[in-house]
């Protein structure tokens, strides 16, 4: 095989190989954070000390397999509790993950991201959401983060100073899928108590499932408060994407494969980028790269590539 032909074949195979590698990481992450198999076998949840550890991904702590705590649920639990109005523990943990990885966590580690990616593989015509609708809808996740996750649990409390987890209660489809459905299947008494709230949450889950079939990463784009939080760190996180504009041939292959519809050639470290690496894998001239910058504490670092 000639060198040129080999290069062409490698470039052609690269997106598939990359996606298989990413799927493997996503499956490993989902298995790791939901590794309590006994929970699925009997109708119970894990009660070990690792449950005090705040995970960096959206994964309901009431899932029978969950080994750690969901950050969004934990944030509301502490803020909505009688003792504290703000959770430094959860916010600090998320800030650390955010500054290190940005939304790489959404692209590689989040189990609900994996669910959406699998739904996106269902052969169906993918919808292009017009920019007039898409752009304002993307702000919805910030509103959900600010209002349902932070402000309401702090302010809308009962006479004992306690507030429900508004996002988990009224929106979170991960809780319905990972916690609600398994528990209702295994527990008859819980099934009998399911009412209007269950129907509402099931409706949200069905909407998100259908949305994810037709619009890649529907929940991440428009609704996820955790993605909204990490997106604040995307522009300066240690893990970052780079575009070498001197190599770029402006073929837009990267933008055509991006599940988050990011304008890669304009804003490669956009807050919307989940760092899935599809753009990098598909680039025919290797203009896109990703790396961990280890120069956080050093000055005068030469930068060859252009953001």
């Amino acid at each position: 095989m000639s060198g040129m032909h080999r290069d062409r074949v490698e470039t052609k195979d690269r997106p598939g190989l990359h996606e298989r590698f990413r799927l493997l990481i996503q499956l490993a992450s989902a298995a790791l954070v939901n590794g309590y198999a006994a929970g699925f076998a009997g109708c119970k949840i894990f009660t070990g000390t690792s449950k005090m550890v705040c995970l960096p991904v959206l994964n309901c702590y009431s899932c029978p397999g969950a080994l750690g705590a969901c950050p969004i649920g934990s944030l509301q639990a502490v803020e909505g509790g009688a003792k504290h109005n703000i959770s430094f523990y959860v916010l600090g943990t998320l800030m650390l993950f955010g500054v290190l990885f940005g939304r790489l966590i959404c692209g590689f580690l989040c189990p609900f991201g994996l669910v959406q990616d699998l739904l996106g593989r269902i052969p169906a015509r993918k919808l292009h959401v017009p920019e007039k609708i898409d752009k304002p809808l993307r702000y919805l996740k910030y509103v959900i983060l600010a209002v349902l996750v932070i402000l309401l649990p702090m302010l809308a409390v009962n006479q004992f100073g306690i507030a429900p987890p508004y996002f988990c209660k009224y929106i979170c489809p991960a809780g319905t899928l990972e916690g609600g459905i398994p528990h209702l299947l295994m527990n008859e008494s819980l099934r009998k108590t399911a009412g209007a709230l269950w129907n509402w949450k099931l409706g949200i889950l069905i909407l998100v499932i259908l949305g994810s079939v037709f619009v890649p990463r529907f929940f991440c784009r428009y609704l996820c408060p955790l993605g909204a939080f990490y997106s604040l760190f995307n522009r300066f996180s240690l893990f970052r994407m780079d575009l070498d504009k001197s190599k770029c041939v402006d073929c837009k292959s990267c933008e055509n494969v991006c599940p988050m519809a990011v304008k890669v050639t304009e804003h490669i470290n956009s807050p919307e980028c989940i760092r899935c690496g599809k753009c990098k894998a598909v680039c025919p001239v290797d203009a896109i790269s990703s790396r961990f910058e280890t120069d956080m504490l050093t000055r005068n670092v030469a930068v060859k590539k252009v953001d």
Partner: protein
Amino acid sequence: MTGRDRKLTRFLRIAAFSIGMIFVLLGVLRGEHLEVFAKAVRICLECIGIG
């Protein structure tokens, strides 16, 4: 990335990392991890859509 952008990026990284560390320590000192634990070891009926 211009020199000014690079300085700003560096500043934001250090600031966010430092604040994150301080917040985690402060949270642990206030016993927030125990509140998280107490919530996470019980089935959250609201989270799963029951009540």
